[in-house]
């Protein structure tokens, strides 16, 4: 009996489980992930590189991509700086309601992005809780680039925070104490000792935030108004062009976004180790 089972599992000198598992995994992954990605490239270049280039360099497309980079950049800057600060405060000081704050900060990860956008509208919109007060002063935040940045910040805040805080938590306190006894001020200690140890986490957090912000759709479409050449980001451009039936235009920008995310993830994959060691 036992020998029958073992022959079933093993052809002599050859492990069946290994190739079988690999092939099964690839068969599942291919139609789900790899084929869709491949199809953008196949479709995008099917009419020649010339038409691809023309679609990509259309003023509307260029504006959309620039706006995406601009808004994502500022959202990333804010989220890394403030995420660092929040992580520092929440890992160094214990106060009443600390856990509640940590949960709240991490909440946007679980909130549907459309809900996030809608919530922002209800706050800052012309009839919103705060927007109502700003409107008479002629300040309109919604349907501008600022709105997109606000939405990006809201949606991506947990990313940088989530990467940086664990590093703070596990960092040996004696490093900072050593720096203090040597004579450094708090700021010198932070700059020379704490920050260098966070280098890997900061880069990772920034890249994650940036990648996520560039691709943000659900909240952006609600708060931006999706106005071409004014508040239309790259994902909104893809959606708009597709709706208008201009599949080539949508596809050209889609290729750029796909390549972009591929680059960011490669960097994340390889640079983290490089940054954390010397």
């Amino acid at each position, binding site marked *: 009996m036992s020998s029958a089972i073992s022959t079933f599992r093993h052809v002599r000198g050859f492990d069946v489980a290994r190739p079988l598992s690999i092939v099964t995994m690839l068969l599942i992954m291919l139609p789900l992930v790899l084929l869709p990605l491949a199809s953008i490239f196949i479709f995008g270049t099917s009419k020649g590189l010339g038409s691809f280039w023309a679609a990509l360099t259309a003023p509307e497309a260029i504006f959309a991509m620039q706006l995406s980079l601009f808004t994502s950049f500022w959202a990333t800057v804010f989220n890394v700086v403030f995420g660092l600060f929040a992580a520092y405060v929440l890992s160094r000081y214990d106060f009443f309601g600390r856990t509640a704050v940590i949960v709240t900060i991490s909440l946007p990860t679980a909130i549907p992005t459309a809900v996030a956008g809608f919530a922002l509208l209800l706050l800052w919109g012309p009839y919103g809780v705060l927007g109502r007060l700003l409107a008479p002063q002629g300040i309109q935040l919604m349907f501008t680039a600022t709105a997109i940045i606000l939405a990006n910040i809201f949606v991506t805040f947990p990313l940088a925070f989530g990467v940086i805080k664990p590093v703070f938590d596990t960092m040996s306190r*004696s*490093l900072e*104490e050593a720096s203090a*006894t040597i004579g450094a001020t708090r700021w010198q200690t932070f700059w*020379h000792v704490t920050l260098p140890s966070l280098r890997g986490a900061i880069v990772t957090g920034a890249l994650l935030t940036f990648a996520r912000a560039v691709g943000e759709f659900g909240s952006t479409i609600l708060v931006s108004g999706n106005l071409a050449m004014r508040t239309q980001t790259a994902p909104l451009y893809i959606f708009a062009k597709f709706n208008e039936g201009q599949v080539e235009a949508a596809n050209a920008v889609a290729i750029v976004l796909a390549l972009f995310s591929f680059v960011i993830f490669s960097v994340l994959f390889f640079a983290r180790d490089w940054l954390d060691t010397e």
Partner: protein
Amino acid sequence: MQPEKAKEPERPDDAPAPPAAHTSPDSPTPQPAAQAEPQPEVAARVVGVSKSFKGTRVLEDVTFDVAEGESLVLLGASGSGKTTILRIIAGLAEPDTGRVVLHGRDVTELPARERGVGVIFQDYALFPRMTVEKNIGYGLRIRKRPKREIKETTERLLALVRLEEHRRKYPSQLSGGQQQRVAIARTLAYQPQVLLFDEPFGALDAHTRVRLRREIRALLREIKVPALFITHDQEEALELGDRIAVLHAGRLEQIGTPDEVYNRPETEYVATFLGAANLLVGVVSGGAVEIGTATIPAAAETARFREGQSVKLVFRPEDVVLSETGQLPAGARRLTNGVIEEINFVGAYERLTLRLDLIARQPHAGEPPLYNVAITTPERRIGVPIIVTRPKPAANTPRLPLGARVAVGLTAFRVLPNFTLASERGSKTFDVQG
């Protein structure tokens, strides 16, 4: 019963009463033994420091000082509060009451960075992103000193700790001992007022520990910076310290030279924590200590006690002499007889477990000095066991067989008050035997 005779102090070193362990804040050198030398300048002084954490007293009125160029070892078990003292001196923790004075300047209110104290942390706390050179130069860089001065100082310190060829390495590429030397050099760069070592050898293996301890001792003699060591290892304390302060449950039990603390412990805790000690409960009677049926003459040692007071006779295993003939060498005082119950050979010396017949009657006049009883009698189980160690030469001449009856004498011992109630004494006392 000659109280007037018993009160004659014959040996002055036995005089100090237990409260003397807490040194008075006014006297810079607390121990009489230090009075022989010219009084050195005080580098660091801790006066009446108390501290509680969440209602638990961790330090209770601790006072001591570190003389210029001296190394003082704070010895205590974990939880004795020794690390808290270090943190208070460094400015990393605040005392509830008490002062910290460095070279005559009260620094109690100063933040850590303004105290100029060098701390060598247990994990060394080297900055992982800086090379050895950068780590050493850090103190001067943040003080915005000229580049040339930083370079020169770094060079000098690299040479001092013999790490020239490792200057461009990162801490993770160094051995534990090398990391520790970088940590010391890093603090020496800004000329600290005092060096504080927090369990400096805790993270190292036994062999490296012994080697590094000698290296650091030599280094400290060279640089002449006063140092305070924190340790729980008594051997380390004896080897590193010019003086040792024994801390127990937040109180200073005794402070003195290694010789004083080891050979003249003032409390039971000090006796048992520093090395092995046998403890026998007895009463003072006519210039002697009576333990059951045994009596040991101790006129000088019992001088400070009342007649009939309950005391503890404390003696080290190596201070016991044994004799099969009943003839003890000169200088040894006869305690009683005992039966050898166990013999262990521990390399350099022999360790015997001896059961004293403290409940047996004393031999009458004319009887042989060794009153023979078989060791299988119930007496064996009621007798008090003690630990005796003998160096190799003594162990071999003559070899004592298991079960042999021997006369037991002591060459040195201490008589300490026996606090039967916990309330009589601030800190706990243990009935540790051997």
